[in-house]
């Protein structure tokens, strides 16, 4: 990072004064809880943020134990990640999944898995934020609530919609963009009707910004996606105020302290204006976007892992000052693995110390009115909007996805970040400055390097499970889903039916691909259970 510029390249003056902040108060800022929500989506509550840590490892049962452990530590929401196959709509017994089942998240592929995963978790009290594939998470949460006599209407939490970028950045569905977009829109529409307190549309800018994007690029790509999905939902004839209150954003937080705070303030304002002025949202809840944050794993290092604890704490302070709704810290062992028990403890305790001991929540938006922060917020906002316009001027964003524009973009930012770190343009203590010899670098190293073994047993278990099911209702439900995909009907009802009939996520995803005229198994190993149905 250059001394006098933010990571996005915004030049900073050494001192700011009255001439740097402009604009009238009510139009640009407003009180917390008032349009355009720059200063926060709610009037002061003093409640702080939902504190949670990324969790999920091994099989559903082991993850359930992990959740309960986190709850005993005082965690106030769940944040669940699937392993790579789960995140990519692949069952554990797929040949390509073999060596990574349960190693970087929990392995989930059938309704029974969700039953075990959430056993004993009070669905009506705990906010459940899932990074797992939204359609399957929502289907199982909905069914599970009903099974337990809880109204789906009281469920809280979120699922991620990522039709634009998932294919080229982190977790590929190997699906055509139009199909992925349809799945997202179906989920959002279903949730707006059946699970109105649940955020069926979490715009996750975290995962793609880990491709080395700066704050402006992250937010701009996020708004391109939000805008496109909103347009698609409106084109279905939905009222903006029927779903916009349940749009939320999950952002990243790098180590660029001021710019990250400005980014969050700017994103709240951009969202409010977009919803009100562009889409005509009247409900204030549609204009006020909750922002949750996952601190940057990319900002951490495998060298001197204890340094990562400091990074997480600094990021948490920034986010407390920015006024976020929920937070998870990337833990000190992030460079190697999903959080260990020890890392969970340190992560949650970091949040709790900052929340309870520093008085950070006693004042809302403490940076409000700061000449510097208001100037930076304006500049970040202007640059985000410029970039959104620039991207949209290149053509229909959907076309840009299909033509590989974003893939090229991400390759560019990955290459850039890699070079910046190697050139020392982005400084990382312990990695490219203040290094120490490996034999001295021992603090927390053993815990950080502890591995999670792949679950070969689970591969066998799921493989055996397939034959134990009642085949007639299973195949009927899959065939019906296949037919529904070819209509304009919302697919969720058919997915619920398949789920109850014992279908796995991989099978359902395969049927969706097949019905769309693309291969059932994009990797060419598996055959469709309903054959080459037309």
């Amino acid at each position, binding site marked *: 990072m250059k001394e006098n510029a933010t990571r996005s390249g915004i030049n900073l003056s050494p001192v700011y004064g009255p001439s740097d902040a402009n604009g009238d108060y009510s139009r640009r800022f407003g009180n917390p809880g008032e349009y355009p929500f720059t200063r926060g989506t709610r009037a002061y509550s003093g409640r702080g943020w939902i504190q949670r840590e990324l969790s999920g490892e091994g099989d559903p049962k082991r993850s359930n134990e992990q959740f309960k452990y986190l709850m005993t530590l005082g965690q106030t929401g769940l944040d669940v990640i699937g392993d*790579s196959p789960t995140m990519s709509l692949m069952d554990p017994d797929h040949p390509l999944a073999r060596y990574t089942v349960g*190693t970087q998240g929990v392995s989930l592929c059938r309704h029974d898995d969700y039953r075990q995963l959430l056993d004993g978790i009070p669905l009506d009290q705990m906010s459940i934020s899932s990074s797992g594939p939204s359609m399957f998470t929502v289907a199982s949460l909905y069914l599970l609530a009903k099974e337990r006599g809880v109204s789906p209407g009281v469920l809280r939490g979120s699922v991620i919609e990522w039709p634009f970028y998932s294919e080229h950045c982190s977790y590929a569905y190997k699906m055509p963009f139009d199909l992925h977009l349809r799945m997202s829109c179906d989920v959002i529409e279903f949730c707006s009707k059946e699970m109105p307190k649940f955020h069926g549309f979490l715009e996750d800018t975290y995962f793609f910004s880990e491709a080395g994007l700066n704050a402006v690029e992250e937010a701009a790509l996020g708004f391109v996606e939000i805008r496109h999905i909103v347009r698609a939902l409106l084109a279905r004839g939905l009222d903006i105020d029927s779903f916009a209150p349940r749009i939320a954003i999950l952002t990243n937080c790098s180590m660029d302290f001021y710019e990250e705070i400005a980014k969050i303030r700017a994103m709240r304002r951009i969202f409010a204006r977009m919803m009100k002025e562009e889409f005509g949202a009247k409900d204030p809840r549609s204009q006020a976007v909750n922002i949750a944050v996952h601190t940057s794993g990319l900002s951490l290092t*495998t*060298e001197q892992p204890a340094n990562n604890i400091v990074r997480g704490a600094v990021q948490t302070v920034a986010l407390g000052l920015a006024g976020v709704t929920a937070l998870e810290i990337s833990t000190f062992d992030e460079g190697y693995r999903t959080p260990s028990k020890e890392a969970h403890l340190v992560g949650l305790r970091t949040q709790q110390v900052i929340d309870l001991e520093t008085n950070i929540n006693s004042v809302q938006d403490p940076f409000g009115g700061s000449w510097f922060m208001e100037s930076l917020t304006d500049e970040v906002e202007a640059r985000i909007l410029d970039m959104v316009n620039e991207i949209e001027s290149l053509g229909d964003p959907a076309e840009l996805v299909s033509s590989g524009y974003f893939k090229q973009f991400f390759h560019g930012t990955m*290459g850039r970040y890699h*070079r910046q770190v190697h050139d020392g343009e982005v400084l990382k203590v312990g990695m490219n400055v203040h290094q120490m010899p490996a034999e001295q670098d021992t603090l927390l190293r053993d815990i950080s*390097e502890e*591995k999670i073994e792949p679950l070969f047993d689970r591969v066998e278990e799921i493989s055996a499970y397939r034959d134990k099911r009642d085949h007639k209702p299973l195949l009927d439900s899959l065939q019906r889903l296949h037919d529904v995909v070819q209509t304009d009907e919302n697919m969720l009802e058919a997915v619920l039916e398949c789920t109850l009939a014992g279908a796995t996520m991989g099978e359902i995803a395969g049927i969706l691909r097949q019905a769309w005229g693309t291969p059932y198994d994009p990797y060419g190993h598996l055959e469709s259970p309903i054959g080459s149905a037309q």
Partner: protein
Amino acid sequence: MTPIRVLVGVLGMDQHELGAIGIARMLRDQGMEVIYTGCFNTPETIVQAAMQEDADVIGISSHSWEYLYYTPELLELLKQNDLDVPVVLGGSVITEEDAGKMLDKGVAAVFGSGSAMTDMIDTVRNLAASAATS
């Protein structure tokens, strides 16, 4: 002199591409020809690509422990195909201990996130040169 041809790829379900892309660009900037195979590779696809593309060096980037299983399979498959192409591993998940194990199994070099760029480039150059003379 023909440029050094390096195949760069990621194995299995590992979908963290930043290191692979970064290395690919870095090697290209040095005038090498990089055959970038992206994600979702298996030892079979890597060996096939290495043969078709006449690669001098194979570079595997890893941010998942899958490499612990796939790398020995890859080395074995290269041997079965009589392909004498050195394999270089890179990635922040590779601990010092595991790097040692991989070197014992026949990997030519291992790099972590903090490795110096010049070291990586020189290693690839030297490996390509010694493979050419062997």
